[in-house]
């Protein structure tokens, strides 16, 4: 039984790791602010879910698992909100997404 758990958590953890790394790559290679934000925040959330669940399997039913759940909730609450606030702030201050201007359409209509 524990072997199954170990293999499962190892799988989740490495998957989470991969997602996180992809997010990192996305943030660097993407051309424009908003695309980078898109890449980074999405992988952020999925990555944390995978890793934390993976670790929870390792910790089993203990105080640590409760703490892990709390952290997961925090992360799920805070990082998307932060990205949202960031996106709207950038938009208001006139930092237009590159792609929109390329096709000549004025995004404001």
């Amino acid at each position, binding site marked *: 039984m524990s072997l199954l758990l170990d293999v499962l958590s190892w799988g989740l953890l490495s998957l989470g790791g991969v997602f996180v790394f992809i997010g990192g790559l996305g943030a660097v290679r993407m051309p424009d602010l908003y695309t980078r934000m898109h890449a980074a925040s999405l992988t952020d959330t999925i990555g944390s879910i995978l890793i934390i669940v993976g670790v929870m399997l390792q910790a089993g039913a203990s105080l640590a698992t409760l703490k892990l759940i709390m952290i997961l909730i*925090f992360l799920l*609450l*805070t990082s998307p*909100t*932060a990205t*949202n*606030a960031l996106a*709207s702030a950038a938009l208001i201050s006139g930092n237009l997404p590159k792609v929109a201007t390329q096709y000549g359409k004025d995004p404001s209509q």
Partner: protein
Amino acid sequence: MTVFFGVFLLTLLLIVAIAIVRADNLFVAVMLGGIFSLLMATIFFLLDAPDVALTEAAVGAGISTVLYLAALALTAEREKRHTVHQIKALVVVTTTALLVIFATFDNVQFGDPTAPVHVHVGPWYLENTQRYMDIPNVVTAILGSFRGYDTLGELFVVFTAGIGVLFLLGTRPKKDTEAAETLIPQQSETSEGLRNYLIPRLTGRLLVPIILLFGLYVQFHGEYSPGGGFQAGAIIAAGIILYALLEGETAALRVVPQWMLMALMAGGALLYGMVGVVGMLLGGQFLDYSVLADNPVTGQQLGILLIELGVGMTVSGVLLSIFHAFAARDKY
């Protein structure tokens, strides 16, 4: 294995440090400062110092970034490229660094248990915490009781900083006073924070109680896991600052009015002092907690709990009043 992580993180640290010095835009420098202290906290965590990591995170990343930003909002945003007497600085700096390397070069092994540091006083604390206080967190034991006098001094350093900022920023700036009259009637947009940002305000409303709860947890859980007065104070202050950011500074002042902050500041310091004096009155030395209760061990625990509470009160009071002093400056 710690060493490899450490080396990687240290290189990252140095890169960030150089980036901070070279950054022209001060906002950028402050944000990189945030990253700097996050890295610093992780390194501390790697070097088996969770308490210090928590303090560095709460104080370094949280509060100091907020204070820097509040100050930047009032002063210049961009640094004028004017590095004066560069060579002289480089010479002085390299000599200091060489001096330090010369001192620590070959005779100090990283982490070897036989180094004099670990032989003399360190181990005594590890054994005697069990005997005298019977609490798991040795760092809090030393902080609270063995070197309680240091922490009293520390508390008063924070108290002085609070007094100082309130004293300096207490005056209404002369030239702006006339403008201030006109400003007050129509509620200025700035102090309303992110009023029209719906999502952050909602999550904020949800998060602030959790942060405060977590702060209190850290405050009273200091003896079992990394935590204590300073960290708790910082976290509680961060929570209320978050509320101020979201709901606007006046709303935050309504929740925690100025006189309450002053009471918190003075009360915490007084509480700590009185615990020491009571120890003296009951026949022990100054700051001797074993006389506080009939059984010395519970006395020590009670003492540590009280002084951690005092520290938490003062630190949160000071940090909040400093934040309000900066934030209120906008209105003038």
